């Protein structure tokens, strides 16, 4: 409740501090009160609760054990490792392919309609996630999937007998890529638009060629956007739950899957540990957002 008291306190303080000031300041804050009240009740207090309960034993005493357990309990450490791996793979992969696609659409000399289509489709694909997406990929590359059958009939093999399974890190990465790289396209397309034709012309005029242009001008200008989006993709994959759950159940041990299991039935036999797990997740996501914001600011610095 600290947040609420702080807001109402600042309302009460203002007229005393500057009594001669215009009265508008006093109730201006009230206009935003519902919004911040909502945020406090349903966003901040739960987060704060996670934070404090991470340092509590079952009996409510202060402890560091839960935090230490994050690194020492094998299942938990593994879950973090797998989550980080898949986030890294799909962030880098999604950024690479998404950048190439955005480049092809914006600067590759493709017909104009392609771009409109691509942005619309990217909007759909980046929002088409969760259960249906998982099912779509099971129908594509699962045991009886379309692509699986094609490969089996072309090479005359049986993937099942060869012990090939898609329900692992790489399989899930392919699924995640479906919503990862469209996001990159959506963010990079406007950034590529921001490259002005005159820069390339000025570079050519000064004796430079395409290599010089990309090496010294375009790439350095785009780099903060590329890195920023990559961080965003990383967080995007790290927080994903529904897609992974519907795709492989609890086959793949991710942090989100573990938290979900903990909610459904205290699998860790320790609520404090569950809170610590969630806290670790929030910290990583917060780092991602901070990194993203920092990169965004860098990207905006040059172009005003």
């Amino acid at each position, binding site marked *: 409740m600290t947040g609420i008291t702080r807001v109402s306190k600042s309302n009460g303080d203002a007229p005393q501090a500057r009594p001669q000031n215009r009265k508008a300041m006093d109730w201006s804050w009230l206009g935003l009160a519902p919004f911040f009240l909502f945020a406090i009740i349903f966003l901040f207090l739960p987060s704060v609760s996670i934070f404090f309960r991470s340092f509590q034993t079952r009996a409510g005493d202060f402890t560091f054990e839960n935090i230490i357990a994050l690194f020492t309990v094998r299942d938990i450490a593994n879950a973090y490792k797998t989550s980080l791996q898949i986030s890294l793979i799909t962030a880098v992969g999604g950024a690479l392919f998404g950048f190439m696609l955005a480049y092809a659409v914006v600067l590759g000399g493709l017909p104009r309609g392609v771009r409109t289509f691509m942005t619309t489709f990217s909007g*759909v694909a980046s929002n088409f996630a969760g259960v249906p997406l998982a*099912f779509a990929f099971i129908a594509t590359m699962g045991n009886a999937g379309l692509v699986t059958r094609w490969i089996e009939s072309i090479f005359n093999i049986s993937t099942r007998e060869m012990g090939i399974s898609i329900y692992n890190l790489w399989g899930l990465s392919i699924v995640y890529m479906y919503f990862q790289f469209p996001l990159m396209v959506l963010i990079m397309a406007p950034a590529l638009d921001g490259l002005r034709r005159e820069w390339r012309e000025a570079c050519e005029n000064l004796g430079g060629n395409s290599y010089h242009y990309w090496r010294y001008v375009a790439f350095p200008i785009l780099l903060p956007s590329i890195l920023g989006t990559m961080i965003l993709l990383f967080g995007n994959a790290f927080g994903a739950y529904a897609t992974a759950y519907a795709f492989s159940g609890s086959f793949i041990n991710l942090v989100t899957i573990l938290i979900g299991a903990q909610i459904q039935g205290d699998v860790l036999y320790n609520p404090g540990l569950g809170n610590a797990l969630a806290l670790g997740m929030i910290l990583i996501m917060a780092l991602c957002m901070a990194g993203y914001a920092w990169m965004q600011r860098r990207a905006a610095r040059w172009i005003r």
Partner: protein
Amino acid sequence: MKKFNIWPWIILLIGMVYFFLPLIATFEFSLKMIKDRYTFEAYRVAFTDSKFFLNFGYSVLWAVLTMICSTLLVVPTAYWVHWKMPNARPYVEFVTLMPFVVPAVTLTYGLLSLYGSPPIVLIGSPILLIAGYIVLSLPYMFRAVDTGLRAIDVRTLTEAALSLGAGWGTILTQVIFPNLRVAILSGIFLTFAIVMGEFTFASLLSWPAFGPYLEEIGSMRAYTPQALSVVSFMLTWISIGLLQLIGRGRGQEQVAGAH
């Protein structure tokens, strides 16, 4: 000077294959319920399941509630930020970006541990579910409305309306809302698409919805889940398509949904 370059086409082709193959595969799979024939049997079965309508109906209900609450929460706030409190913008923006920091699973965990046991118990009502959905919708709603407000110069409009003797109710309903219709609609469409396909909140908070239903029949049956996946994809496609249509040329980008 323009030379024809093959590489953009190759990349585009790979992208298209990656985009469409899972959709084609799902559609093809959904048609194979009867052996050796392509039929729409799976769709018939899916749509005759009474539980489908129940769950789908619930999802529509949640979506409508979320759309209403989110609009009521975001539009006045965004308007107020533009008109009276531009200094508060970074704080409001920060809050709207919170769903990226606190993913759905984590938020559910926090909500349940805080409001799942006394002194405050909220799990008997769908308040937590709707709150979760509102949180999910915040970035899209705020961004859409914010862009809309930016385009209409709120300050001048409001001052003009005030000088003509309009009251606050009149200003909001006659001046601000009509000018923001497109912006609000685009936010609402995206919210609808997100809530209809959402799984995490509904499943972990144990409320009936389309997402958990789909997941549940996915583990029990073949073909019908694929049929419903196709339906779900079309829903998303229609929502985003409508969004693009009404928001044409407004340069609105969406950032990540609920995965």
